[in-house]
């Protein structure tokens, strides 16, 4: 009984983090900030829900596959976030929420025009193939 309530509490914490993540994804100013919300809060939310399920059920097979899933999430989400953030910066996304200077200026080559505008004008006039 006490384990069920503890598991339910952990699941509620995870759902809270998921709600915070989707609010961040919908409300933040530029793609890098939205990625910050989805990657961190989303991972923590899913991990807490899995922890709650493991505590509530208290079975060995559930605990093992749940721990494997949490470890997999914590290993892969930073890699995906790094690659996606680098691609976002390089492709010239608008950084509306930037305060202070651009710390990566001169470090990474960055396109001046955002990708969507180039794709839109590429649809009208065919570009040279490379």
């Amino acid at each position, binding site marked *: 009984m006490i384990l069920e309530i503890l598991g339910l509490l952990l699941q509620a914490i995870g759902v809270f983090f998921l709600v915070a993540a989707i609010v961040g994804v919908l409300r933040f100013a530029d793609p890098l900030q939205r990625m910050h919300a989805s990657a961190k809060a989303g991972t923590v939310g899913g991990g807490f*829900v899995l922890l709650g399920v493991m505590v*509530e059920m208290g079975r060995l097979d559930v605990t093992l596959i749940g721990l494997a899933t949490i470890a997999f999430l914590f290993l892969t989400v930073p890699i995906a976030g790094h690659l996606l953030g680098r691609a976002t910066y390089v492709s010239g996304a608008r950084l509306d929420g930037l305060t202070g200077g651009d710390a990566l200026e001169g470090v990474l080559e960055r396109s001046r025009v955002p990708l969507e505008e180039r794709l839109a004008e590429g649809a009208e006039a065919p570009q040279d193939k*490379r």
Partner: protein
Amino acid sequence: MSAGFLAHAHTFLLGVVVVVLALTGWRLVTGRTLVDRIIALDMLTGVAVAIAGFITAATGRREFLDVGFGTALTAFIGVVALSAFVERKGRRQK
């Protein structure tokens, strides 16, 4: 009485997660930019794992956690492939 309370709490939490899933899908369809759609796909990883966990708790079958693991794996590969595409496409200057 208390067991009924616990069951209702599970249903409520699952309903909240389904609302989050609907908002993520809305963002995935009508994203402001291409990168925002990929971010919504990344967000879908955590939501899918949470829903798999809730269904495991509701049915008592361990196989749904395997489904969550596979979904996380597929979403990771998809995000990596799509971000490689965006980086290659975005680097090309005129």
